């Protein structure tokens, strides 16, 4: 494994962790916004936000796997 690969893996690991934290913060905030403004589309917004959190978790897993197998 060369130096470039190590740098790449560190960067994608940090990015995926930060993205996961970002998705969690956004989902928390969306819940607050949904309480502030209750509308007919709130369920859809919550659904998409939970999709974002799920996607961020999947990415984190993919990145962790790629660190060992790439």
């Amino acid at each position, binding site marked *: 494994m060369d130096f470039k690969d190590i740098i*790449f893996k560190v960067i994608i690991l940090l990015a995926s962790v930060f*993205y996961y934290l*970002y998705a969690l913060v956004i989902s928390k905030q*969306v819940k607050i916004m949904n309480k*502030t403004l*209750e509308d*007919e589309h709130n369920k859809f*917004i919550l659904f998409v936000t939970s999709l974002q959190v799920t996607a961020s978790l999947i990415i984190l897993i993919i990145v962790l796997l790629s660190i060992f197998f790439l």
Partner: protein
Amino acid sequence: MENNIKKSSTFYSYCVNPQTKFDTQEDGEKVYLLLRSHPFTQIGWIMSSILFFIILFISNFFLQNFFNPGQIFIINLFFIVIIFSYIWFNILNWYFNVGIITSKRVIDIDFYAVLYKEITNAQLGRIEDTTVKSGGYIESFFDYGSIFVQTAGTEANVEFIDVPHPSDAVQIINKLLSKKHGF
């Protein structure tokens, strides 16, 4: 208030008698109008998103020289997710920044960058003046502009920026004011 000039229109940015509730709503307080920024004002981030996808597509031709296929897959995955997050962030920003006109007051709910909340409201009895600002080719063509509600004393003024059909919205406020003052 049922005989308004405009009915709900412009992609959920001008909703007459919406089924909306908000957290500080009082008993018997009816929401007459819900306003969001006109969809045309969102064109900036929509164009940016398209541009990001194009940049990602083009950059794939150059990435092949520096990274192996597995790394290119990870880079693409990251960028696609980041672009979709950017789109979703802007949709949330647009959707939850609303102006509400109720039977008792005028409320402006703002979420700055999704994280900071600011709610300004003006009781109908405290409203002194309403101003509509709309100018330029685009604003005239798409019929959108800003509404400034001035209140008496030290109470905060309420602003609805770039909302559709501003004249109609002000007409609704004026009708409510007339009703309130018994004219």
